[in-house]
């Protein structure tokens, strides 16, 4: 079965430190990859996507993500975390093989400590 894995339920990082939220995928073909953020009691907001091209993708709010095809990973990064980055982050893959389908990870809660 196709899947997206976010191995950490929660990531804690001190304000000002770099952060990484991990994502790996097991999806056939060449999926499109996404990161979304969800603040409390809100819907999902788009952060960034990888479709093709440069493996380092830059997105909103200073976030970036690195696509690694050999490791089937798409980790989210930020050089310097802010307390306001604390939220729930979802990685997702959009498969273009067969039926179009979005596959979401289970989410990682990021807590940035002041």
């Amino acid at each position, binding site marked *: 079965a196709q899947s997206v894995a976010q191995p950490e339920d929660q990531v804690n990082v001190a304000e000002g430190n770099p952060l990484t939220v991990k994502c790996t995928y097991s999806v056939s073909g060449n999926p499109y990859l996404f990161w979304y953020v969800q603040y409390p009691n*809100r819907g999902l*907001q788009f952060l960034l996507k990888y479709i093709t091209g440069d493996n380092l993708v830059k997105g909103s709010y200073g976030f970036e993500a690195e696509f690694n095809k050999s490791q089937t990973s798409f980790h989210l990064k930020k050089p310097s975390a802010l307390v306001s980055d604390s939220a729930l982050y*979802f990685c997702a893959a959009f498969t273009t093989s067969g039926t*179009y389908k979005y596959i979401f990870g289970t989410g990682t809660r990021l807590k940035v400590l002041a």
Partner: protein
Amino acid sequence: DVKVTQSSRYLVKRTGEKVFLECVQDMDHENMFWYRQDPGLGLRLIYFSYDVKMKEKGDIPEGYSVSREKKERFSLILESASTNQTSMYLCASSLRPYEQYFGPGTRLTVT
């Protein structure tokens, strides 16, 4: 900016009630989606629609139905609400299949 609105932010219903969750988008998108979000399970697709009066089952359609009479409106219906349908429900719309815009969500509690 794309705007996707959902009729209620919070809803409390009793077991056995028929529940309607409404979603409206203002960008003339053809595709609309209903997901439910549960801790530790991420988002799971309930139903989607790629045109008026068209619908397709997602991964967990049991206990739900949908209606799309107009392009901008996609309704999720719980025919007889049960406690295991207590969840956060998210609606999304898209022009291209992979560019989904999400509404704010409806947190439904069934008692």
